[in-house]
């Protein structure tokens, strides 16, 4: 079967690119990027400077090179593809496919005129698009009824620059879905405090939000030192955070109590030396 060129020309890159992307700075180590790729099941991570403009792309091939040299601790600046080829969001799929054929890359970042990364287009996204042509409408409608909406974001320990991005994205999604403002406020506080906890205390973690019409469940799971006495950690004012964290306006022992106050149900599981899992539930039908 041959798909007519007109079909590809009618599809814009911005319509099918994957916008659920993670960006890193040149200082991120290859190990954490490997983790991001594993958790998010992606094979390319854009590298941006302090102004959020693209300067490179770490691909799965770069991770393999670092792995082969036993050098995963190095900053990604050392291995990333510099000034990568990219697509414009307004490009059509035909232009994109020509680029894929020319360079034989597996994915291209999608970058606007200001140099900001809007998404990534991989061959996988294109294949899925082809499959979705006919089934699209039926499928999506069914899905929203049956399955919970799951949002998932990796959070890096010590990454104070990106801290808050995951919570910000969650908030935006809930607003788009028309969730009640008082509920959004509670979710925002829980996710933000949980995200800050991972950034302050852990090595790396994931923030997950499950949404159904009845309940919002927020799970923040990290690999880190763990909490030895959870009851003590729940006490307002108790903190193990170092002074430099306090200078940032956090680490005064109010994180977990804040999370508790905004949750209808809260469970904390922790193993010292391994990590912590915070599970918070908010019921939506409760009046």
């Amino acid at each position, binding site marked *: 079967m041959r798909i007519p060129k007109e079909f590809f020309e009618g599809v814009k890159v911005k319509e099918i690119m994957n916008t659920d992307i993670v960006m890193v700075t040149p200082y991120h180590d290859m190990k954490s990027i490997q983790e991001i790729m594993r958790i998010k099941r992606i094979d390319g991570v854009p590298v941006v400077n*302090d*102004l*959020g403009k693209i300067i490179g792309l770490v691909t799965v091939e770069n991770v393999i090179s670092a792995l082969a040299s036993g050098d995963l601790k190095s900053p990604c600046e050392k291995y990333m593809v510099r000034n990568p080829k990219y697509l414009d969001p307004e490009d059509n799929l035909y232009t994109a496919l020509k680029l894929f054929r020319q360079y034989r890359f597996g994915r291209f970042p999608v970058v606007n005129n200001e140099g900001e990364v809007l998404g990534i287009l991989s061959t996988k996204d294109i294949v899925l698009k082809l499959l979705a042509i006919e089934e699209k409408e039926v499928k999506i409608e069914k899905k929203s009824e049956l399955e919970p909406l799951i949002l998932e974001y990796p959070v890096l320990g010590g990454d*104070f*620059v990106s*801290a*808050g991005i995951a*919570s*910000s994205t969650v*908030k935006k999604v809930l607003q788009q879905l028309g969730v009640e*403002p*008082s509920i959004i*406020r*509670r979710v*925002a*506080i829980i996710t*933000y*405090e949980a995200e*800050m906890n991972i950034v302050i205390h852990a090595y790396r973690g994931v923030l997950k939000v499950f949404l159904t019409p009845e309940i919002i469940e927020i799970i923040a799971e990290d690999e880190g030192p763990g909490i030895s006495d959870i009851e003590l950690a729940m006490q307002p004012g108790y903190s193990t955070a170092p002074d430099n964290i306090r*200078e*940032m*306006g*956090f680490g*005064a022992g*109010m*994180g977990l*109590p*804040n999370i*508790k*106050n*905004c949750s*209808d149900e809260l469970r904390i599981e922790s193993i010292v030396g391994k990590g912590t899992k915070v599970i918070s539930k908010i019921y939506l039908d409760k009046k």
Partner: protein
Amino acid sequence: MKARDIVKLIDGEVLAGEEIIEQVEIKRGFAADLMSDVLALVECENKDVVLITGITNPQIVRTAEMLDIPMIIVARGKLVPEETINLAKEKGIILVRTKNIVFVTSGILFQNGIKGAIVKGSREEGKSC
């Protein structure tokens, strides 16, 4: 009170959000360096709260974003990092710097009719947050 009038009262320097300064109407204020306290206590459903702080890192903007706080005042004339200013611009939040200390800034606003912003009920009632 219009955000613009607040800037005048405290002799402030607008670092971000100049374009919305005529529209934003402030009724209440909250002063803190501890962002967890802001998160715990401020309710800003009507987008009418100003946050006064001595902290300058981007987390003040993130905190404001989480709670829909439209305006932040950094007191004591501290140098505000570029990344904080850029984030405020991106999020459409007014960021102002004043040479006044937190106490004086709060006093000026209070004298001019800005009330304390606090969540209905208290922390102990928790679930109302």
